[in-house]
């Protein structure tokens, strides 16, 4: 069946609502507006306002309410418009959702799912464009997902809802219109493993989310150059499936990490550190990282493009580790 990333997400919500009547969706403009990225369009008509709940503009209150409802037997899906706005609810996510189970000595698991948009590329400037999923991946107690394909858009929500602990799902804004074929019987996917999206032998390109497509484009460019790149999609940013990328690096002996987050103190730093800790002697070249420039993402198109990882910069980094610059 032909579908889009947006429709696959919607189908996943619909499926979860039908499977389990404890599931409900809440967030700003998810109902009568149809969702700020139209993910929930039509669901209000289908499930009614009890289960597709428009909330006031109050991120801390409704994310916290999602946590409370999860503590008390429901299975909420909370939508936050973008990761930048999730900072208004960061206290609830970190100090409550991620912490209660441990702090209560194992008594209070928090089975909430929080979805949000992330990433740049649409000239929305610095307060709408950041990639802060790496910050969330820093937090023990959370599972952090980054669906980059139609299968994952369709398949990650149900296992996330089945997880007894809080799960954050990051949807890169550039992906919503991604279209392609999805199997008619597509359903839940494994959340524990990274995926090899393109096998190769010369260099391992490790990425996720909105950067996957750019990395695959770079791999095609490299192939034309005679460099056979393997592309790994992390899929789950916490807990990291290090085995998959370490196994790959042990074969290719070279690694480039591609991450739209900033470089310093980041997820890309974590991956590079894991490689250094576990596979240093397997490397034929230092690990390289292609990240966003360390600036608030600007509005002007040429500046925004210059600030973000691009196929050309990814390919250049890969050539450098393969051929030494």
């Amino acid at each position: 069946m032909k579908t889009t990333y947006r429709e696959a997400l919607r189908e996943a919500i619909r499926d979860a609502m039908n499977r389990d009547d404890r599931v409900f969706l809440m967030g700003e403009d998810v109902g009568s507006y149809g969702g700020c990225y139209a993910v929930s369009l039509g669901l209000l008509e289908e499930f009614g306002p009890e289960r597709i709940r428009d909330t006031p503009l109050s991120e801390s209150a409704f994310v916290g309410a999602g946590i409370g409802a999860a503590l008390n037997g429901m299975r909420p899906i909370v939508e936050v418009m973008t990761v930048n706005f999730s900072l208004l609810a960061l206290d609830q996510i970190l100090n409550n959702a991620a912490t209660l189970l441990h702090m209560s000595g194992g008594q209070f698991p928090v089975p909430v799912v929080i979805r949000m948009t992330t990433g740049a590329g649409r000239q929305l400037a610095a307060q709408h464009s950041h990639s802060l999923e790496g910050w969330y991946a820093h937090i023990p107690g959370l599972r952090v997902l980054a669906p980059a394909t139609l299968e994952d858009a369709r398949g990650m929500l149900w296992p996330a809802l089945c997880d007894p602990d809080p799960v954050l799902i990051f949807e890169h804004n550039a992906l919503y219109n991604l279209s392609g074929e999805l199997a008619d019987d597509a359903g839940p996917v494994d959340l524990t493993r990274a995926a090899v999206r393109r096998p190769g032998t010369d260099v391992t390109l490790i990425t996720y989310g909105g950067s996957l497509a750019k990395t695959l484009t770079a791999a095609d460019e490299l192939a034309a150059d005679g460099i056979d790149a393997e592309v790994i999609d992390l899929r789950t940013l916490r807990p990291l499936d290090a085995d998959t990328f370490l196994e790959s690096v042990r074969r290719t002996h070279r690694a480039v990490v591609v991450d739209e987050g900033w470089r310093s103190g980041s997820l890309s730093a974590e991956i590079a550190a894991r490689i250094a800790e576990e596979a240093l002697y397997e490397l034929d070249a230092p690990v390289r990282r292609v990240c966003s420039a360390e600036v608030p993402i600007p509005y002007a198109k040429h500046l925004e493009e210059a600030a973000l990882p691009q196929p050309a910069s990814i390919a250049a980094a890969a050539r450098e580790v393969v051929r030494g610059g």
Partner: protein
Amino acid sequence: MKEHLDLLREMVRIRRFEERCAELYSSAQIRGFLHLYVGEEAVAAGVVSELDPQDAVVSTYRDHGHALARGVPMDAVMAEMFGKVTGCSRGRGGSMHLFDASHRFFGGNAIVGGGLPVAAGLALAHVMRGEPRVVACFFGEGAAAEGEFHEVLNLAALWRLPVLFCCENNMYAMGTAFAKEHAAGDLALRASSYGLAAWSVDGMDVLAVKESARRATESIRAGGGPCLLELRTYRFRAHSMYDPERYREKAEVTQWRHLDPIDRLVEVMRPEFTDDELGAIEAEVSVEIDHAVATAETADLEPVTDLTRFVTSEVSP
């Protein structure tokens, strides 16, 4: 009459500027999010006309009207929309993030409610430095549901901070109607429960807005503490250029269009005010807009090598 003319000119400038922006958006010369203020011009024109140059203004992502009324040059605002280095934020902010230090315009802010705490801090500095200034802080009725609103109103009232809170109640927060956002309908009453003077104003009547802003700023300058105005208004156009407006009836929009603040002021100014005079204002404004577009089109982009400038200050500690 001079006062009326100034208010009319300001509203026409804002209206026509934004109409041109909508066209430029359709032709892809402006990108990103574009939130138009069409219908709400009386609020910016009326309130800002009561501010002194040394007062400060804090705005939202729907900031063109506030910036233009404040005197941020139209050329610089248009260039910003084009992402050019001559823009008032060097092209880095775009429509939602207009800034101009020389006009004490502390920015369009795209985080709903994000400007309120900053306004309190600006006012705190005015107090601590003994300056009799007012900070005008604009935000929507949707923002009144955010924690910031409640925290800041309490703080400002507690410390008697000289802030004029301007709540632009246009009845919708994106697609969420007022009644779906707020359990209690009276925003002025809610604000006054924090211990500050607050009242509602017909935000489609620029003279009423101006009169209320005058009373409020006088009281604030006299040391009476913060005030809140609930300005009842309406946006004639979509929330942003992406909004298909599924959440409201066309008839409702039409009804509000009958209250167009520009038409209403012209009505008041008749019969002395003639069509020729109105035509002259339109012509003057159209020249200004053409100039802004022409200069924005030919202006330079910021060199990519400057991308990392101003992440931190260029003066060493």
